[in-house]
């Protein structure tokens, strides 16, 4: 437990998927990776490959077309894994909640562990959300959070 906990709290790798987002949160997520906010001081690295990732960062809500892609990315990630929904669209579809093509927040498709509100969510809030998810990973003790 000790080693698992210690290892999982540090250096979580992230895969980011932009669902039906307006790009606002997606760009703020990228900003959080850059020198001013610098998530790399926590060992957080943005990887393109879901198979290398511990945390899935979702921006934007789920719609009929991208639901399959969201599930696909989620199930490609090895356990333990956590999902962070960034922005109101990912949390509940926000202003678009009654659009005909929207299913709702990301939690309609995959289990979400941390909700980061905001339109668009600020980089500081995104970093806090990711760190909370890293704590969840550490507490899971090998069981895995998010779905399994």
């Amino acid at each position, binding site marked *: 437990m000790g080693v698992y906990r210690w290892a999982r709290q540090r250096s979580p790798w992230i895969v980011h998927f932009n669902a039906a987002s307006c790009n606002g949160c997606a760009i703020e997520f990228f900003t959080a990776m850059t020198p*001013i906010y610098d998530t790399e001081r926590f060992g957080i690295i943005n990887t393109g490959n879901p198979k290398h990732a511990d945390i899935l960062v979702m921006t934007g809500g789920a719609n009929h077309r991208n639901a399959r892609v969201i599930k696909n990315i989620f199930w490609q990630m090895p356990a333990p894994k956590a999902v962070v929904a960034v922005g109101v669209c990912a949390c509940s579809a926000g202003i678009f909640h009654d659009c005909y093509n929207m299913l709702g927040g990301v939690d309609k498709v995959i289990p979400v562990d941390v909700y980061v509100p905001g339109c668009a969510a600020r980089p500081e809030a995104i970093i806090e959300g990711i760190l909370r998810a890293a704590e969840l990973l550490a507490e899971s003790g090998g069981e895995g959070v998010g779905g399994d």
Partner: protein
Amino acid sequence: MRQRTVIPFGPQHPVFPEPLQLKLHLEEERVIEAIPVLGYVHRGLEKLAEQKDFVQNVFLIERLCGICSFMHALCYCQGIESLIGLQVPDRARFLRTIWAELARLHSHHLWLGLLADALGFESLFMQVFRNREIIMDVIEATTGGRMIFCSCLIGGVRRDIPNDLLKETIARLDQAEKLLDQIAPVILAEYTVKERTANLGIVTKEQARKLGAVGPVARASGIAMDMRTLGYAAYGDLDFAPIVEEAGDCYARIVVRVKEMYQSFDLIKQAAKRMPKGEHALPIKRLLPDGETVVRVEQPRGELMYYIRANGSKKLERVRVRTPTYANIPPLLHMLTGAQLANVAAVAVLSIDPCISCVER
């Protein structure tokens, strides 16, 4: 006979954050045909705009695209103002110009950062984003928001920029311009960038016209098309000329965008210098839009067109949006045909600076 393979590019791809999907038909390493697959970001915003009233719509329309949210609000507000016959105060026109150029600056910085990252210049990507934060700080100080400004309203702007804040803004932007002086030569004069982008994805002037290219893509092919020359907001009172390059390749498109960043700094300074005194918003009580109109503004990516039809009630009958990336997809497919697979992401796709949430709404 050579075997054809189909490689899906996206919707989740490390180089490009947005869910753009291209089905690339390859023969060995060469792209024979690229087929765009759209719909991953479709929300149904145009339908939603018919269900809300025309004042609420400003906030909805801003959320059409996070990168150029101000441009969308500006275009929509100009359309409604022309329908209700409202003349915006002079100060509001100048303030709108300043925010529009700030939006262009942060959008072009984002594009430059992503391009640098795609070309393998990781530290340049970081430097561009550091510079972009100065602009984001200025936007936050003047509007209160970072991505979604909510500063453009029908009849003017939501808040004024006081003169002392305006001076501070210009000082901060001077700082950002100096930093850009260090960054821009790296991308423009670097041998490897030129080798990778020159003579690649060529769109000639005739092809650009035929394919309907807009914005920097058209201007890099020698077409002097810039909607700002229509003189909306305060652009009619400022001195500028569209930036045009003749080559039509990826390198020319990079040059056009980098020069436009300098042009934006210049336009903001001009607008600040000539800023008129007076009120910044007019009341719109008891005014309802009637009739139909077409409005065009210049987004960071090119010409943005709104068609608005109203029937004298609070709710609009139709809002149709035609975004620049939509117009630039045929030129993109033309560029991709015959390109090497390695150049698809870094060079061809980023050279049109796509914005998929604009296209699909």
